[in-house]
């Protein structure tokens, strides 16, 4: 524990800016992953424990696409679409069969895919750490804000995540498709009685959630080193985010993700070994005080 260091940091503008920008990009990536997770839970009632592996796949897809095309924006799109398609296949072939089964059975199927995908990545991309390197377009000198260093790429990443968040909000609350999805989340049997194909909606939401995780992986590729098993920690963190924000609530995921991002970046100065403990402590407090989460509706 080094709380003095934390207080030192908080009293210097440069350190606050640097840490806050780190926290915000961690939060932005976490939001994309957690939004998919919470959307899938809200509509399908299924916890996709393999969601971290989707993030990993997204990062590796982006890596390969970037090596082939040298175009970062294209690589991120490839990552999103690729993982979305993979999610669709996974849902149609496997997840669909365990919707009505015990939550443990769902856990087991997802766990199997975590194991399988980690090894598939090992076979295809190799077991070692890999990195994409910063794309040329972002190799500009970092911005100095109040003495703190903010890499250009961070701004791009935040803008991209913000845009995706905005799109997500527009789709869910303003379009007919969003209305159908919300209806399916609220009352699946009534939705299906109205002649809408809920099975298809489920597949679409699962694929869409996967796509968000894939996009996050792709966006994270330049600033994260990649290795098989990289999905584990982000999975755990996005669980914490969804629980804190409220399971099924996308806006809750945003609040939770930013909170966890900031805890991570400032905590790593003040109490580096206890960052994880702090996050779980926050989650436990929320669960005890308000199990449905900060912005969640009461448990169904």
């Amino acid at each position, binding site marked *: 524990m080094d709380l003095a260091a934390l207080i030192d940091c908080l009293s210097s503008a440069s350190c606050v800016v640097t840490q806050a920008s780190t926290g915000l990009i961690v939060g932005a990536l976490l939001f994309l992953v957690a939004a998919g997770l919470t959307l899938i839970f809200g509509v399908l009632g299924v916890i996709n424990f393999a969601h971290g592996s989707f993030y990993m796949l997204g990062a590796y897809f982006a890596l390969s696409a970037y090596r082939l095309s040298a175009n970062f924006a294209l690589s991120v799109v490839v990552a999103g679409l690729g993982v979305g398609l993979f999610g669709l296949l996974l849902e149609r072939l496997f997840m669909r069969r365990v919707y009505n089964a015990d939550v*443990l059975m769902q856990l087991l199927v997802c766990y199997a895919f975590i194991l399988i995908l980690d090894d598939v990545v090992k076979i295809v991309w190799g077991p070692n750490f890999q990195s994409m390197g910063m794309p040329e377009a972002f190799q500009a000198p970092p911005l100095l804000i109040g003495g703190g260093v903010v890499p250009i790429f961070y701004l791009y990443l935040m803008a991209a995540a913000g845009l995706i968040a905005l799109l997500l909000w527009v789709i869910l609350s303003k379009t007919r498709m969003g209305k159908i999805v919300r209806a399916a989340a609220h009352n699946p049997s009534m939705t299906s009685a109205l002649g809408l194909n809920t099975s298809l909606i489920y597949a679409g939401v699962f694929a869409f959630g996967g796509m968000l995780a894939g996009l996050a992986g792709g966006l994270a590729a330049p600033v994260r080193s990649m290795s098989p098993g990289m999905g584990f920690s982000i999975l755990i963190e996005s669980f914490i985010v969804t629980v804190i924000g409220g399971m099924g609530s996308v806006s809750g995921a945003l609040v939770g993700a930013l909170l966890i991002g900031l805890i991570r970046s400032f905590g790593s100065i003040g109490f580096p070994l206890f960052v994880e403990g702090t996050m779980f402590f926050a989650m436990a407090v929320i669960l005890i005080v308000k199990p449905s989460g900060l912005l969640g509706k009461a448990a169904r």
Partner: protein
Amino acid sequence: MSAASARSSLGRDTLWALIALGALLAVPYLTSSRIALDFGIRLAAYGLLATSLNILVGYGGMVSFGHAMFFGGGAYAFALSLQKTGASIPQALLIALCFSAVIGLLVGAVCVRLKEIYFSFLTLAFQMFLHSIILTWTTLTGGDQGLTGGIPRPPFLGLNLADPVHLYGFACVMAVVGLWLMRAILQSPFGYTLRMVRDNADRARFLGIAVWRVKLSAFVLAACFAGMGGVIMALFVSGAFPDFSYWTMSGEAIFMIMMGGIQVFIGPVVGAAVLLLLNDAISRTTEYHGLVLGLVVLLFALGFKRGLMDFLGQLWAKQQR
């Protein structure tokens, strides 16, 4: 169930326990293979962990994602009291069980009020919190290096646990006694009350049962038996490691009960044996451990749709009809 049939079922279980114990204790006379003895010790530890988790999952309908906190807690309490206080083995065992029970009581009192997935996540949170404490409190626990330096094993009752054969015998006795106790508890009126709470908590409440007290009791008992498993594990590796209370350990325990089955009492032990054997076999034959294990798990989950013993149990029930 009438009192007489309950008594006869207890007698039958006791007989089975004695037969199993006899057979297990005969193994060192048949083979001197360290591999076989080591496997027995690991199975004793994981069997206790998985079966105690099944008290919650199978009989109580409480899916805990954090059960390994008691496994790790028991291991650390046991190893630390031997290392730091110079306690005897029985004293350290007692301390470890009490420690697990107290943690179980504190955590359980908060957790059992929550339902379904919220219960699962809260147990996960507490487990990771404990794991973080173990990592952070380096002076006591050794941090991420684990509690190293070996643990002293003062002889007691003519047993010297530094001897692998004695350790094997001790682990077998602990496991069989633990399993027998759990079986007796689950077949008692308390065990049937727990099943009723699982099936219909409202009905149980209307009948005047304090539901949360039943759940909490089950939680504390399960914690104790998981701690017992942790004690065996601490003796086996001669120390304690943070991984013991990491979420992957809880995941493995869930894995074991799902593979073995949750409706047959001995299912989790079978699951533990299957998973240990599978892990060893896969590690020997391929470097792609996860790929093969994942495919086997998929086969279980989508093929059998239930654990091995549940599958066999249903086959057996069909035959009877």
